[in-house]
């Protein structure tokens, strides 16, 4: 538990979310705000604005080049979705500087997380989820604890990855064994600091078991399944080399058709590749 204490004691050094996120949240919380107000905030941040346009025109949203201004992006893909895209970009940028070790490159964790985000979103879309905008972000955030380890205890974390691969166990088991604490606990600490909404906290907390004790079951279940699908397809790398067993209850909960995967494979591939281009290339 010493390591956990070390990490908590570094809480003040934790990266904060980009200021644009807070400004946007404030504007969105004001019922009088218009699309133009939101567009103005985003347009002040060149990099955010250009990524919103790229994302809006990507196959993920399917507007195919018809979005040419930030205001249009807001109208077409929605306030919440635009805000979540900006949070995702901000978080990816925060951890961009994390140094890689010989076994695990943060870019690979991001590739894995982006894959989980895109697959979670495709499942959410199939389910007709009303809070679809949270599906992508939940996938992006589920392994955030691992990035925290990479940032603060890179050498110890290299041992974890070594142990996981040598012993063919999950990253979580290896973390418990080597560190005495796992990425879920670390992720929750960060979620708390960032004051993330309960849906996203649940995705971080329950993605390995796929259950939650409240109404966010479908989203958490989707992240659980997407996480398994992303490892199965070897999209990115998340610190271990095993594919976890799906929680049977989640299949019952989500009621996906039997041919869901082969039907959606090409959408998964196209969305994943375009999301990688949008989020990982500067």
């Amino acid at each position, binding site marked *: 538990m010493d390591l956990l204490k070390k990490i908590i004691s570094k809480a003040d050094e934790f990266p904060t979310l980009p200021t644009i996120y807070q400004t946007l949240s404030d504007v969105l919380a004001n019922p009088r705000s218009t699309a133009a107000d939101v567009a103005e905030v985003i347009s002040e941040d060149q990099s955010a604005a250009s990524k919103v346009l790229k994302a809006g025109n990507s*196959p993920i949203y*399917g507007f*195919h*080049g018809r979005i040419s201004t930030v205001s249009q992006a807001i109208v077409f893909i929605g306030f919440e979705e635009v805000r979540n895209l900006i949070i995702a970009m901000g978080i990816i940028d925060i951890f961009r500087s994390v140094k890689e070790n010989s076994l695990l490159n943060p870019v690979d964790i991001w590739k894995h997380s982006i894959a989980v985000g895109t697959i979670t979103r495709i499942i959410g879309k199939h389910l007709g989820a009303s809070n679809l905008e949270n599906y992508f972000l939940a996938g992006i955030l589920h392994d955030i604890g691992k990035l925290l380890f990479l940032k603060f205890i890179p050498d110890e974390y290299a041992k974890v990855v070594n142990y996981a691969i040598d012993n063919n166990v999950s990253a979580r088991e290896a973390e418990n064994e080597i560190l005495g604490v796992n990425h879920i606990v670390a992720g929750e600490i960060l979620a708390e600091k960032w004051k993330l909404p309960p849906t996203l906290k649940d995705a971080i907390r329950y993605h390995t078991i796929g259950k939650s004790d409240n109404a966010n079951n479908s989203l958490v279940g989707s992240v659980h399944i997407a996480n*398994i*699908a992303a*490892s*199965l*397809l070897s999209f990115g790398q998340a610190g271990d*080399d*095993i*594919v*976890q*067993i*799906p929680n*049977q209850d989640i*299949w019952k909960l989500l009621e*996906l*058709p*039997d*041919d*869901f*995967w*082969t039907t959606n*494979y*090409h*959408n998964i*591939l*196209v969305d994943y590749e375009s999301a990688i281009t949008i989020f990982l290339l500067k």
Partner: protein
Amino acid sequence: MAKVISIDEIQDGMINLEPIVNRYGQTLLAKGVVLTEQHAMILRTWNIRTIRVNSDEQESDVELNDEIRQLILNKINKRLEWSPRNPIENNMIEMAVLHFSNELSSSQQE
């Protein structure tokens, strides 16, 4: 050989290899239609994002024969701590087989 492309990549003269239906089951594009930009527009309207077309690339020898399929399955199973228990888990594995065989054939073409 066939390849799946985004509808943004449709070029005049490509051939559609699978009938495409809209959400009401009406056929939008029959199999064998020679594609044009206008077809892309129709598909976009129906939010259909990918299409299977013929490809000029040389016919690959990696048609998924039993031997290669088994090799890919072995590779997947090594990373799996479990065996599929229901049709959707089987389908998930099937997707992975499809994915790795596509990767294999594109790496052989390079």
